[in-house]
């Protein structure tokens, strides 16, 4: 394919032409799987080649007859200056003898531009190279002209113009002449020049289809945008780095100019907006965008005549792309998970909270909202809160807080002044070292296994307390252990039960558990085999059992089984494999450490474990720290990594002291409250506030409204408060016979009247509380006094509601206040 390839949409939908050495007609179709091979233009569309026309070899420019509706009529401008009307095969124009008609200028020279009049579609205009004795802009009427050449109103414009390109619209023609100027010609009045400007940018003149005042043209590296009302200098100059090859205003969008530079894979689009500042017009705003349709060396493009943002582009190699420019999308998210985004100028699209997308995302915001609605965190019993969440870590935290609370209450953890002590404070690790006594218990004694050796355990009062905290409160007798294990078995946690049994040196029990487990067990883990292996336990250092258990134990999938065998095969009391077994719960690991580690090792282990858990933001760490400063750090870290402000705030409020939390806690509480508010979960927020004030009995909310006398200005509210406490001037009026006060207790002036019934505030009305017969309530809400915040007139609530059903203005005579509308704000 030789020569520069051009492309243009036709007025017929879905058809376009390309031309270079030959003119081709294509039709666009939706891509389908089984359809005939199409030339793929985009992921959705392809094209058929309908026809080619290679009668003309030196095509310089083409314009399509704008009224073509069934067949295309082309005006082809050639290098020899001939303009030929042509079609693709037989057409409706045959009867008018149009196809094949030639329009020839007097002197042969190259035709540079050609354009149909879009309104008076029988007129065609062409621009030519300069010639000393002929005009360079010629206008024909194809209907009038006989078969030979020029006819009709051909008006010479410039004797020697090199008219480069023309674009014609509504009887006004803009021409670029002689590389020097742009002229606007009006052909209605014998080609009068109505306007011109001197510039070098005379190429590719394009008229903005939405506003004829604006022209665009280019030269070399520069695009100029012109306002014809102020034609002396360009409105805008857009410099580019490369030679320009085509510019075109978008036909479907206002003020969008497409610019193509030579040898680039991209197009530049400019959204040009006029702006007025005061009465003066300032330089227009320009938003530049670069789109890459995915072609190399684009040689031409054409905006779709009707489809917004669609254009065709053709490359040097003849590849064509059908491209949609996506408008800049703006988007926003509501507090209630409504996500909205824009599509161009007309449409907003949104998805709501109910969208299945959110279910699949499993975001914390949704969980928080759901939990808040269920009353999460507000239940009196701490562990009940844990039941409301599906997150195991959170459930454990609530259970743990519940447990430590209970243990402190029943006195098991006497000696700690905190409500939720941690293992570390119970062990007094941070204080003086405690000497625990070490006890050796022989295997044979407890497990009934044929073993000679013994296991070394450490005991101390504090360690026992710590074990209680870990949930291992069965140290004292075997019965509670069995109970605990049965419980675990019920939960199908056979391996955990077995491991704990082994840690308590009850190998026989462990074997039994595993056997039972294998009967109703999870497929894949063969607990029977494990039980058999366990049965062969021998603590002889050189035994076959030990040697062969050492290696396969790492291949066990279950962490508890792994830990169990690690324990049984441990050498020199090195239990690292168990202590750092992340599959085991923190409780179990800590409990294990409390039994089997000597003081100094236990100390180190708990310290390092605390650090790890803080770093991970693992709430299990609260077991170790309790409600201390380190506990706060864990909470902060947990919040940082999950965004779960709800659990953080709730745990902080329920179990941490205000002094410890300081500003941080306030921040959490406020964040959570504002979150609830933005979801309009005001009830839930109020419940949270109630819980908050029950935890912090000293922070009473301040009174919001005070009533003072209109005359003497003394506070009535304060007086009333005094009454309810049984003090004040009229103590006898307090108590059961509640006071109805209708005058100021100080100056005896009457209180304000209800604007409707004219009764004084505080007057006992006859119709109160008749229906419910509930004597504890003096008046029901409808008889409360209410007033407008603006004009300060008011009366009984029910009267006011009734009044404003029909009125907008204040019921007080001569008051113009629009109470009803105003206090709605």
């Amino acid at each position, binding site marked *: 394919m030789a020569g520069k390839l051009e492309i243009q949409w036709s007025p017929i939908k879905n058809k376009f032409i390309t031309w270079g050495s030959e003119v081709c007609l294509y039709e666009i179709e939706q891509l389908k799987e089984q359809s005939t091979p199409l030339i793929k233009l985009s992921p959705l569309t392809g094209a058929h080649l309908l026809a080619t026309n290679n009668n003309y070899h030196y095509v310089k420019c083409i314009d399509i007859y704008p009224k073509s509706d069934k067949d295309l009529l082309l005006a082809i401008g050639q290098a020899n200056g001939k303009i030929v009307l042509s079609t693709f095969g037989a057409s409706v124009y045959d009867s008018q003898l149009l196809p094949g008609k030639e329009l020839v200028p007097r002197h042969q020279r190259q035709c540079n531009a050609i354009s149909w009049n879009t309104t008076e579609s029988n007129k065609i205009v062409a621009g030519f190279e300069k010639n000393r004795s002929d005009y360079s802009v010629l206008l024909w009427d194809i209907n009038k002209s006989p078969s030979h050449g020029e006819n009709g109103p051909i008006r010479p414009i410039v004797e020697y113009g090199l008219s480069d390109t023309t674009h014609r619209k509504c009887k006004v023609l803009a021409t670029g002449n002689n590389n020097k100027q742009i002229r606007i010609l009006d052909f209605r009045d014998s080609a009068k020049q109505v306007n011109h400007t001197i510039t070098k940018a005379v190429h590719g003149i394009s008229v903005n289809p939405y506003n004829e005042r604006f022209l665009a043209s280019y030269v070399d590296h520069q695009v100029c945008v012109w306002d014809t009302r102020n034609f002396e200098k360009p409105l805008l100059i857009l410099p580019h780095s490369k030679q320009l090859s085509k510019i075109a205003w978008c036909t479907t969008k206002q003020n969008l100019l497409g610019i193509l530079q030579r040898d680039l894979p991209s197009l530049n689009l400019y959204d040009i907006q006029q702006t007025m500042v005061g009465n003066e017009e300032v330089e227009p705003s320009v938003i530049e965008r670069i789109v890459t349709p995915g072609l190399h060396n684009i040689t031409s493009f054409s905006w779709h005549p009707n489809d917004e943002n669609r254009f065709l582009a053709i490359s040097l190699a003849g590849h064509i792309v059908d491209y949609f420019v996506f408008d800049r999308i703006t988007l926003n998210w509501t507090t209630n998970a409504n996500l909205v985004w824009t599509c161009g100028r007309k449409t907003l*699209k949104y*998805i709501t909270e109910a969208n299945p*997308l959110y279910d699949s995302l499993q975001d914390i915001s949704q969980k928080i909202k759901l939990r808040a609605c269920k009353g999460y965190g507000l239940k009196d019993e701490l562990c009940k809160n844990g039941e409301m969440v599906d997150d195991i870590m959170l459930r454990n935290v609530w259970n743990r807080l519940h447990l430590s609370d209970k243990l402190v209450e029943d006195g098991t953890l006497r000696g700690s002044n905190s409500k939720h002590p941690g293992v570390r404070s119970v062990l007094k690790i941070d204080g003086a070292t405690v000497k625990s006594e070490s006890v050796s218990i022989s295997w044979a004694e407890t497990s009934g296994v044929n073993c000679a050796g013994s296991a070394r355990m450490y005991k101390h009062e504090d360690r026992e307390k710590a074990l209680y905290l870990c949930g291992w409160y069965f140290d004292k007798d075997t019965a509670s252990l069995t109970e605990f294990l049965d419980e675990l078995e019920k939960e199908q946690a056979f391996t955990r039960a077995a491991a704990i049994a082994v840690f308590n040196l009850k190998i026989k029990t462990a074997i039994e558990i595993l056997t039972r487990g294998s009967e109703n067990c999870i497929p894949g883990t063969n607990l029977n085999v494990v039980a058999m292996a366990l049965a062969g336990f021998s603590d002889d250092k050189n035994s076959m059992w030990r040697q062969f258990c050492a290696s396969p134990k790492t291949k066990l999938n279950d962490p508890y089984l792994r830990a169990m065998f690690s324990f049984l095969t441990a050498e020199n009391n090195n239990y690292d494999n168990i202590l750092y077994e992340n599959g085991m719960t923190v409780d179990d690991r800590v409990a294990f450490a409390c039994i089997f580690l000597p003081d100094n090792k236990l100390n180190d282990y708990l310290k390092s474990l605390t650090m790890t858990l803080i770093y991970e933001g693992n709430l299990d760490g609260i077991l170790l720290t309790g409600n201390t400063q380190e506990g706060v750090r864990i909470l902060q870290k947990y919040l940082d990594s999950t965004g779960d402000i709800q659990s953080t705030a709730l745990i902080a409020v329920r179990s941490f002291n205000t002094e410890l939390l300081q500003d941080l806690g306030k921040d959490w509480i406020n964040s959570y409250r504002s979150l609830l508010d933005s979801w309009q979960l005001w009830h839930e927020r109020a419940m949270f506030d109630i819980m908050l004030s029950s935890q912090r009995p000293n922070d009473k909310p301040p009174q919001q409204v005070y009533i003072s006398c209109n005359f003497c200005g003394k506070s009535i509210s304060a007086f009333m408060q005094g009454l309810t406490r049984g003090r004040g001037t009229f103590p006898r009026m307090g108590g059961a016979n509640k006071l109805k006060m209708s005058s100021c207790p100080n100056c005896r002036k009457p209180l304000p009247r209800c604007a409707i019934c004219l009764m004084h505030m505080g007057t006992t009305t006859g119709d109160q509380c008749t229906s419910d017969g509930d004597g504890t309530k003096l008046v029901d809400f409808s008889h409360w006094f209410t007033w407008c915040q603006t004009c300060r007139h008011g009366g009984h609530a029910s009267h006011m509601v009734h009044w404003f059903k029909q009125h907008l203005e204040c019921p007080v005579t001569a008051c113009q206040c629009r109470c009803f*509308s*105003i206090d709605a704000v």
Partner: protein
Amino acid sequence: MFEVQEINAEHKDLIHDVAYDFYGQRMATCSSDQYVKVWDQNNDGKWSLSSSWKAHSGSVWKVTWAHPEFGQVLATCSFDRTAAVWEEIVGENPGPGERGTRYWVRRTNLVDSRTSVTDVKFGPKTQGLILATCSADGIIRIYEAPDVMNLSQWTLQHEVQCKPSCSCLSWNPSFSKIHPPMLAVGCDDTSAATGGKVFIYEFSENSRRWTKIETISSITEPVHDLAFSPNLGRSYHVLAIATKDVRILNLTPVNDNNSIQSGITKLDVQTAAQFEDHLSTVWRVCWNITGTILASSGDDGYVRMFKMNYINSWKSVAALKAGLPTPPISQTARYIKLGAISQPREVPWH
């Protein structure tokens, strides 16, 4: 795959911004057609147009709501070099028993800028009613309404010279008293030579001035949007940036002696994530309420979502096709129909 609802906005030109109020029940849109439209959601969740007015004499770039505590208040900014504050008031002469028609009045026009005002945002409500604007010539202005009952009075509190062509700004929304007021500003200047394009400013209580505390030097491409995530008690700040890709930065205040003495926060800046999923320019970013999901839009015509799974672990979780112009096939059908009625005058009488 997803059910997507549509609202017919009918702006006459490109919509530049969409803003929701605090509760997500009102929405404001602004466009190059110089209009601002306000939409209300009814109880069924349907949106309807409640007001539409010509707000500026140039493209309106951004629109934003104030906290409802200050009333129904909007701020807009425009290419016409101004920013404006609007308040909804109840009109006169309503019918009996009805509420008056509501309409928006311009309370003030902030005309200090000599160039296009590219962004406007209300500060966190704990600071009172304050407004920050930034303009194409790179000046950040902080306004304050000293009397929240009188929205027509705004005083220009601070003028900070940033780099030219500021395109966007974002307040750090933290409620906490621990963090002083903080602003992030982005520039869409196209030359990489001018260095970092995102700047963090902080208000220092001691000097009573806004000080630049950080320049994000890793971002040299033009920045089109940025957004601080809702803080909700986190110990660090998260900033999302729309540039040639989506960036998520963690800004952690460092409490060393130096920063305590100078009273200026030092930030530890970490890039938590960088997503090139759009394969093209990214235009906008926004956060969900907990700051755990980020949504972005780009030139590829997709809205994409990124979710946090752990502190620095972000994952691309969803891509929503923003919507094509009507597919070509339906137009073919329409064309045939049009062709059939070639001469409408021949339609017979009944």
